[in-house]
Structure formats: structure tokens, C-alpha cells
């Protein structure tokens, strides 16, 4: 299936490993990625808050270029991109007058119009069910035997559920399904649906760290060998800011954090060239060693 692929900012910058592992995995899962080039940041909730009219137009522009590829699905690999694009998509699809105004503005700067024929879907949703889920079980032939994985959803792939609409935001199942298809053991803990603190980690670090510690601490207590997340912002927070938790609380969790595409990649037998674990701050080596033992 051909999909328009929007990788967003972080997968182009500090989380390149997410893009690399996704690109390596896609053909094995029947996903032909048509990467969008003439696109910008979705605004990450920040432009929605600072200049909301500009937010709507930037996202309409991304949707318009996605539609121009002829694909019905715009695939995202970030929670925040998913919410921003889906929200704008609902607004444009559900209000003809608003869409006409936005399209007039897009036309004035040379962007094709958006007719409302694209669905925005996260990679997680494309893999967690249906035929592709069956393919996943074959792809993940090497498995994750003996590995206990804590699924961490993050916020903006679950809530607001009326905009996201994929699964019950209080009882999600998709990450667990993928962990199990990969042969790992999904562990359960309450904070898997809570916030990692990333949106305010620079403006309110103390508050953000008090949020961040909860899922890591709970996952650790539940015996997790690693955590997996479908969001590069959650990944950055959980992985890179663990050292700040050590500095502020004295607790050294050393919890390895995997992108969803890396988790599947490990189960599929990917090499470091496709996984890029060297780009993580917290070493993933203990997980790989346990897997080889």
C-alpha cells in the first residue's frame, strides 16, 4: 500500500534513528512510503497556541501535498504530528467555508488545494491490526523471547479520543498487540497512558520531571527490561532526560527506551546500521544481551 509519509521535525533531526528504522521496516510491512518534501513542521501544539490560524494553514498545506501524491493515507510516526494533522483535517473536512478560505490562501502562495480526501494515520495503527498485523508476525521472526517490554503510549495518540478515535484511551491495546506479535511480554502499569512531560520540559522542567519519573519508575517496578513508545518526543524525554532525573532525585534508572520501529526492527533481526542504538543516551545493550543469552 502506498502512503504519503510525513516524518516531522524530530525524525529529521535529533531522532534520525526513528526515520532510518521506519524506512527499513516499511517495505517488509507492505508500506510504500512516498515521503513528502515540500512540507514544514506541524507546529507541535506550539504554533496552535501561538498563532492558531497559521497552524491551521501549515497543516492544510501538509494535507494538500499528501493528497497530491494520490495516496489515501498520510502516515505519521509522531504522536504530536498525528494530533495536529488530524485536528486540522477534521476542521477542514467538516467546514466547507473554512476549507474554501484556507484553500484560497494556499492557492495565493502556490500550494495545491486540499479537497479533504486524506486520512491521517500513525504507523502504530497501520501495523496493530488487520492483514498487516499478520504480516508483522512473520517479519518479527527473530522475536523478543524473554524480554519484558513496558508499552508507553504518551498522550496525543490517545487523547482527545474523539479526534484520534483509534482505541479506548483508558484501555489501549495496540502497543501490547505489537509487543506480543514480536514475541515479547507486555507488562502493565498505570502510567502508560500518562504524560512524559516533554511539552513543558524546557519551560517548566521541575513539573515536567515530576511527570517523567512516574512511567519510568512504574515500568521499572513492574520488571520491564525496556520501554517502547510510538512518539519521538516521548522518546527524547524518556531517554535523554533520565540523566536529569539522576541529578535531581539521585535515582539512576538506566531504562532503555525504544522507538516502536526499533522494537519491531530488533524482532526482525535488524543490524545496528538500521537501528542506530548508538544515538540513544541510555544504552540498549542490556536488552540485546539478554536477547542473545
Amino acid at each position, binding site marked *: 500500500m502506498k502512503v504519503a509519509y510525513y516524518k516531522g521535525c524530530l525524525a529529521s533531526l535529533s531522532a534520525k534513528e526513528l526515520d532510518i528504522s521506519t524506512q527499513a521496516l516499511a517495505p517488509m510491512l507492505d508500506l510504500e512510503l512516498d515521503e513528502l518534501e515540500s512540507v514544514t513542521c506541524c507546529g507541535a501544539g506550539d504554533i496552535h497556541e501561538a498563532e492558531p490560524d497559521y497552524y491551521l494553514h501549515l497543516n492544510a498545506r501538509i494535507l494538500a501535498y499528501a493528497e497530491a501524491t494520490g495516496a489515501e493515507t498520510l502516515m505519521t510516526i509522531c504522536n504530536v504530528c498525528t494530533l495536529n494533522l488530524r485536528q486540522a483535517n477534521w476542521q477542514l473536512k467538516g467546514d466547507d467555508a473554512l476549507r474554501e478560505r484556507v484553500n484560497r490562501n494556499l492557492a495565493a502562495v502556490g*500550494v495545491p488545494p486540499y479537497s479533504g480526501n486524506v486520512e491521517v494515520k500513525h504507523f502504530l495503527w497501520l501495523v496493530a491490526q488487520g492483514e498487516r498485523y499478520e504480516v508483522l508476525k512473520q517479519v518479527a521472526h527473530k522475536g523478543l523471547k524473554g524480554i519484558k517490554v513496558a508499552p508507553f503510549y504518551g498522550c496525543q495518540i490517545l487523547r482527545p479520543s474523539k479526534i484520534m478515535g483509534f482505541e479506548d484511551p483508558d484501555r489501549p491495546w495496540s502497543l501490547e498487540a505489537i509487543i506480543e506479535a514480536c514475541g515479547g511480554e507486555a507488562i502493565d502499569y498505570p502510567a502508560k497512558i500518562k504524560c512524559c512531560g516533554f511539552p513543558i520540559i524546557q519551560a*517548566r522542567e521541575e*513539573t515536567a520531571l515530576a511527570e517523567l519519573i512516574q512511567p519510568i519508575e512504574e515500568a521499572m517496578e513492574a520488571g520491564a527490561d525496556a520501554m517502547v513508545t510510538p512518539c519521538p518526543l516521548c522518546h527524547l524525554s524518556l531517554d535523554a532526560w533520565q540523566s536529569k532525573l539522576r541529578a535531581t532525585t539521585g535515582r539512576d534508572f538506566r531504562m532503555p527506551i525504544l522507538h516502536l520501529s526499533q522494537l519491531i526492527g530488533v524482532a526482525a533481526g535488524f543490524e545496528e546500521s538500521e537501528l542506530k542504538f548508538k544515538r540513544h543516551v541510555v544504552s540498549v545493550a542490556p536488552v540485546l544481551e539478554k536477547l542473545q543469552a
Partner: protein
Amino acid sequence: MDVALKIWRYDSSTGERALKEYQVDAPEWVTLLDVLDLIKDRVDGTLSYRKSCRMMICGSCGMRMDGAAVLACKTRMLPIVEEGRVPTISAMGNMPIVKDLVVDMTPFWSKIRAMKPWLQPGYDELREKERIVSQQQVNVINKESLCIMCGCCVSECNSMDADPDFLGPAALAKGFRFVGDARDRATVDRLEDYNSEHGIWDCTRCYFCNERCPKGVDPRDAIAKLGAESIKEGIDRDWGAKHAKWFVTSAKTTGWLRETELVPKTQGIISAIKETRFAIGLAKHGKVPPPVPPHVAKDVDQARALYDLVKSQGVDGALGIVQGEHALGRIEFEHESAERAKAAAE
């Protein structure tokens, strides 16, 4: 039908806490509140909870079902019984428990009061002529006006859990109800107040408030509207506002986030220098992409031109969010239509 509930009982005077299971016979139409009434009448008269109107307007019966805040009077039991679930009922979060399902809402009310939730029209004497407010002006604060102050949005607020002084979703939504009121003349003073350390920019965007609100207020969106109004009024000294503005600058200059410059642009140079050691740790793993040469999006001139065009059209501040609410308000209807079509097809 037989309805079973587990209820966390609590007595703050003794500190005793226990999970107790109850089972009652009830008609199929009952709500959670009806079941609690039946338990109190027939099984255990000492069970404590708040209630009044029984019709989703007084906001008294907020409580948690399986960890999620709900209005007891809005929660039908039939589908839960049919699923075979025995839900666990407990008091709302982020507020101290007085007894069983009753929370002390003193901190909630003090935050509401801190918003100065009354109209400040800028004059004391009544004018001779009535002031007509247009439907368009009312629409701006329509959603926030629906708040019944039940506390469900506060119950699972992740920022308030981490920072109990955070003004929180209910109070800030109330704040926008006045900032957005065409008759109010205290906008700048209010925004200055709400830009405090525990105000607008303390929100972590977990969206639990939008998820929990039983009235469709969408408090997170109200907080975003306050952020947009603050920046429009030039009240942007908070690091949160500077952080948000840097995304706009990034989009209209390179298209993509200028990630490495985000810390100094948010926190200022001095604070950024203090983060040098942390940044070096990240840089070793490629987490600090070099700002030069900049990562520039193809056709970024379109994004730049779009910014100037959009800014010239005056859909400023909160209006940029309000304009999309008509369509977002239709989503539930669209979901229902899709479900009906699916059911008909089956």
C-alpha cells in the same frame, strides 16, 4: 439486572481505607448515581457521596470509575453490566478525600476565585442603553460557558499532579470565559495574572481534561486560547510563550523546527549556558543537530508567504481556534453516523 460495584471507602478522621464490593438488583435504566442511591438505601447507609440535580447540570457527583473521572448521573450501567465488568469507584484525584467519594474542593474553588470570575466592564454606573452582544461574540465563549465546575477535568490533570499549585483546566477555562467576553474590559490585567508561574504555560497538554469533561468544554483548548491571546497582546515573557513563538519563527524561516536554538530562545542565553554539560551529553549521541547549515524545507518560501498572508487577515489570537470549533463539534455526530451506517450494513 444485578449490578456490582467495588467502592474505595475512606475515612479521613481515622485514615482507614478499604475496597468493598456491593451488589444490588436494579432496573436496566439506572445510572451509577442511581446504583449508589440503592446501595445507600438498602445496604450501607454510611456510604458518602455528593449529589443534587441528577441531570448533569449541578456538577456535584464527579467521581472516578476505573480511574477515570465521570459524572455518576451521566454514566449508564447497562453497557457495563452487559460487558460483565465490575467497575471500581473511587474519589476524584488531585483533591484531598474527606470521606469515601467526597473530596475537599477548597483548592478547586480558591483557584476559580483567583481567576476573578466576574465581569469587569470598565464602568460602575449602568449605562442608559442596553448593550447588545452578537451571536458571533457569544460563540467565542460558548464552550467555556458550559462549564458546571464538577472537577472532572482537574481529577486527572497531569500537570496538577506534578505541581499542585497549577491553576488547572477548570480555572483557566473559566478565565477564558471572561477574557473572551466582548463586554469585559480587563483582558490585559487578566492575562497578566494568568501568565503566572503556575498559570497558562504550566499545562503539559496531556489532554486528560478534554477527555474527561462531561460537558464538552475542552479546557485544554481554552488554555491554548489564553496562550494565543497573551501572545497577541505581547504578554510573552514566560518561557512557555517564548518556546511557542520559536516554533512560529522556525516554520516561517526554515520550515522545520530549529531544534538546537530552542533552548536559548526559550530560556535565554544565561540559562542555556548552564545547560552546557547536559547538552554535551546529548551531543555525543547526535541529539544536538548542528544549526549550521540550517535544515531548510523545500519550497519554504510558500510557508513564509503564507504567514504574511494569514497575519493580514485578522483571524488573530483565540479566533484562530474558535473558527475550527464548528467542525470539531460535529465529530461525535460523524462518529455516530458512521457507526449507524456500519450497523445497517451488517
